């Protein structure tokens, strides 16, 4: 699966550059996501991982280059076509982003009610099945605030799957989870992918867990893909950036210090004042 050719790629980013204002985030990034697999996109904080996700969903448009989902160029879509594309992509945002004024049931039912003409009894059945998948059918009538953070994210996962998308995107699905919740989420991501045969992209920086669920893995640093391949191969890589990230070293190609003037100069200045 390492030698994925562009034909089987579900999502491709070609020579993509993107900047927030005048701060460049991505520089000529090339990335292929194989169809039907779980791909982990890793990298240090602020390296542009979330931007990649926002480019795929069309929330941001690349300054240069193309973002292809299937055969569709996301950057060229009109709002209506973009909405059509988004119905086919399930996204799990960092903290779940459930609607706090709706019950879990209504949260999951929302996309179905909005986008399908299905009658209420069928919607009810579908929602309960989705909640059953994430193990929270019993919490259908509870509000998100009554559930733990991990459970919230599982409900959000059910909501993201509500329309049976072909692609699932997970933005930092493990951040701030206890080990049990993390194990649950890991297993769910993998099971959902296997059971539905969909393409999954997981944005994360949890190096240790990647091996357990990802088929394919790519590492982004400073707006570029610095390494890609099976997680096991990455772990044994000799590249300095890859080693720093996989082993969690404080300093290396990714510097510990935020860019600044030399320390002695700063200290001398403040003494003079």
């Amino acid at each position, binding site marked *: 699966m390492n030698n994925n050719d562009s034909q089987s790629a579900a999502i491709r980013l070609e020579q993509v550059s993107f900047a927030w204002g005048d701060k460049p985030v991505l520089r000529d990034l090339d990335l292929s996501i194989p169809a039907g697999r779980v791909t982990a996109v890793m990298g240090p904080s602020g390296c542009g991982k979330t931007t990649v996700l926002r480019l795929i969903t069309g929330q941001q448009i690349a300054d240069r280059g193309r973002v292809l989902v299937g055969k569709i160029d996301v950057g060229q879509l009109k709002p209506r076509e973009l909405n059509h594309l988004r119905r086919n992509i399930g996204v799990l*945002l960092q903290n779940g*982003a459930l*609607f*706090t004024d709706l019950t879990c049931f209504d949260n999951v039912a929302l996309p179905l009610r*909005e986008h399908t003409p299905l009658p209420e009894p069928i919607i009810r059945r579908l929602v309960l099945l989705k909640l059953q998948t994430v193990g929270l059918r019993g919490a259908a009538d509870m509000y998100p605030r009554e559930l733990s953070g991990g459970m919230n994210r599982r409900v959000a996962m059910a909501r993201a799957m509500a329309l049976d998308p072909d692609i699932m995107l997970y933005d930092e699905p493990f951040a701030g989870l206890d080990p049990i919740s993390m194990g649950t989420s890991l297993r769910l991501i993998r099971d959902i992918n296997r059971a539905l045969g969909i393409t999954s992209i997981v944005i994360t920086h949890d190096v240790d867990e990647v091996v357990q669920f990802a088929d394919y893995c790519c590492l982004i640093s400073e707006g570029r893909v610095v390494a890609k391949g099976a997680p096991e191969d990455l772990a044994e890589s000799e590249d300095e950036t890859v080693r720093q990230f996989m082993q969690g070293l404080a300093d290396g190609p990714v510097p510990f210090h935020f860019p600044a003037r030399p320390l002695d100069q700063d200290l001398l200045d403040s003494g003079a004042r």
Partner: protein
Amino acid sequence: MAAPRTLFANPVRELGRALVFLLTAISRMRLTRLQIAETLRQVYFTGVRSLVIIVTCGFFVGLVLTLQTYDTLTRFGAGDAVSTVLALSLFRELGPVLTTILFAGRAGTSITAEIGLMRATEQLDALDLMAIDPMERIVQPRLLAGIIAVPALVLVFNVTAIFGGVVFAVFLMGVDPNTFWGNMQASVELGRDFMGGMIKAVAFGFLASWLAVYYGWTARPTSEGVALATTQTVIATAISVLLVDFILSAIML
């Protein structure tokens, strides 16, 4: 949104942005069954939840207004005119203005905070990603609900204030009830005084909910950003309601 905003930093630009925001919201207006149900839900959250404060304030405003007017008018031997003064000042000015300012404090702030926190907790992004327009789902129902809830609250306010007036003038001061109602009916015009006030109420409701959703929508997604936005909602609503009130009064007179 990069530079911190203050209310008067650049009023013209601020006004332009608020206007563009409003036009965007209106241009994407789509009245579906879901949309109407959501609007009704918002009428509950903004209107029904404001009833207690509106009824309480309305009663005491009616009471104290009658007390002061009656005291002044009796010095000129015109105590019977108290009901006229009460009804005219309520219908034309106090009802719409006070209700809207109370509404801004009670409901406007919670709309602003709610939308600001929805942005902070990515709920607006989530809607976008589900191919649901947050303008349509979040902004429009709250905008419509304000236009419905404020006039309704003004009516409730006016009724309780007049009741407060009856309690003071008729029950405590012994003004003849027939004189009280008769004078009121004789000198309050349904079209100009009462309906004119209701036109104001609709305009103020629109203004209050517009400002509330606008400040919520543009709030920086942090705790202090949301706190600042709620403050701005109250200040901006109070000032612009008084300004628009003056303009409308000048036009209608």
